[in-house]
């Protein structure tokens, strides 16, 4: 009897088992990226730069050439690659601590130069790998292991709005904040990621998608509670929005 594969994973995922916690959004976002790489037919010319953080193993999960950058420096590493090989597709995958704290300068300057790069920015308002410390995007009042009384503006400042900051930069070609909490959100996120890759492939400029994501483990919630908390709290502080679209349809 002939067997047909009715449903399978994207080719651009390596098939290695993910190391992420139940309810974490990394897995969904990985899959969306891999689907886009498949659909755009760019697997053979894509290079990924993984960050330091929970997704440090991401370079193993994608079936493309890859490396791990020093913490925060993914966009500098990617810049070096892209300048060496301008016809390849280079993307970074970074968390909020990586991209918006230690790597803020590299992020801002790569965007400002309009590097033909794509960045997937996972904003889950907490440091995951190191055990739930405050992130630059932690909400006011949010408890973390280094804000045991809740984040206080007087001591810790305010949540950093990376997409709003980058939206003023001429070099940015695509910039959107999305989430993957509902099926509809996932469909929107995939469209955004596709455009962020097209911004690079069409040589228009820098593309970034900020994905509001859950971290049930460090938030101390069940996966379902975490989805709800994200939709009720994070989207208020970080509104879902297309900030820049020079890619078109």
């Amino acid at each position: 009897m002939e067997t047909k594969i009715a449903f399978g994973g994207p080719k651009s995922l390596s098939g290695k088992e993910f190391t992420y916690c139940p309810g974490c959004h990394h897995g969904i976002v990985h899959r969306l990226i891999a689907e886009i790489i498949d659909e755009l037919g760019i697997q053979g010319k894509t290079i990924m730069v993984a960050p330091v953080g929970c997704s440090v193993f991401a370079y193993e999960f994608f079936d493309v050439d890859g490396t791990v950058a020093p913490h925060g420096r993914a966009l500098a590493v990617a810049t070096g690659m892209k300048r060496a090989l301008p016809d390849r597709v280079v993307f970074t995958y970074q968390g909020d601590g990586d991209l918006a704290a230690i790597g803020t300068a590299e992020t801002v300057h790569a965007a400002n130069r309009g590097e033909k790069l794509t960045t997937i920015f996972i904003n889950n308002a907490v440091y995951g790998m190191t055990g739930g410390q405050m992130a630059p995007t932690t909400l006011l009042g949010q408890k973390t292991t280094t804000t045991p009384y809740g984040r206080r503006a007087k001591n810790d400042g305010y949540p950093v709005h990376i997409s709003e900051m980058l939206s003023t930069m001429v070099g940015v070609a695509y910039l959107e904040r999305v989430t993957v909490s509902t099926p509809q959100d996932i469909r929107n996120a995939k469209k955004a990621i596709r455009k962020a890759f097209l911004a690079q492939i069409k040589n228009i400029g820098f593309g970034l998608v900020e994905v509001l994501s859950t971290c049930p483990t460090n938030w101390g919630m069940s996966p379902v509670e975490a989805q709800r908390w994200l939709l009720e709290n994070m989207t208020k502080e970080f509104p879902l929005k297309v900030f820049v679209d020079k890619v078109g349809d």
Partner: protein
Amino acid sequence: MKTEKLMMKGNEAIAEAAIRAGCRLYFGYPITPQSEIAEYMSRRLPEVDGTFLQTESEVATVNMVYGAASTGKRVMTSTSSPGFSLMQEGVSYIAGAELPCVFVNVVRGGPGLGDIQPAQSDYFQATKGGGHGDYKLLVLAPSTIQEAVELTQLAFDLADKYRNPALILADGMIGQMMEPVELPPMRDLSTLPDHSDWALTGANEREPHKVTSFNIDPYGLEEMNKRYQEKYTRAVREEQRWEEYKTDNAEYLLVGYGTVGRILKSVVDKLAEEGIATGVFRPISLWPFPYTRLRELAEAVKFVFTVEMSSGQMVEDVRLGVEGRVPVHFYGRMGGVVPTPDEICSAFKKLL
């Protein structure tokens, strides 16, 4: 054919030598006394279809070098002391990921902001591992502009041979001085070593390549470290380089590298006029340090006299090399002061 000698500033000669070695990618951040390298590259690289990028910081620079080197292409950066300190994290990653590339540190007086005058106070950082982890850089120290050209080319070749970062350790004097140089011909890019077995170029019709310094399993990481150490052992065996000047009948051995190494030749000549037979041992590879030859030479002299533009850093390697066979004395100037032949002569004669 008459070879053309050009008067070139050290910084510019290093830049041109790199281009002629096949380097088409330069990332850098301005810092005195080496900014002429970046300026030269910004003018010259576009002429040879290369890429020059002025970065936002040395931290970004070193990571761009990491990215470019991971594609298997020849890439370099240059900086001066405080800038190289900023790069150390990335240098460690590059050594761990076994990526060939070339760094130039035109050393200035430190610590801290220090000054911008020539110094040799970054020797420990260069040779003992400036960043974290068990790694080594291949470190070459030129004493003339001609040698700076030759060592820059060698640095690229050694970096490829060992898949390891190489460092030109110069000082403000080598960077700023002009001297006649003969430049080597332009290297045909198609003759550069093939890195297609590991480079990140897109996994087209092959298994994906992964380039990292990362291994979460301690036993796995230990195996990676063993591989690094095997390379370093081989480099120690094959890459010790030095120059000797009038060491044949020397009763005393003067040791210095880079700028000081050439000043010591004048010292030897002055002392010879007074009937004192001395010779110079000038390490060219600071890592691997030429212990073997130094040990042989030390057997035949009354004492060894090391001179540095630091509080005494290389002298520790000299002592390791001499192994207590004869006394090792030291004279140093700090803060960017270059010792003159006369003052070195006086310091030496006090030891007699």
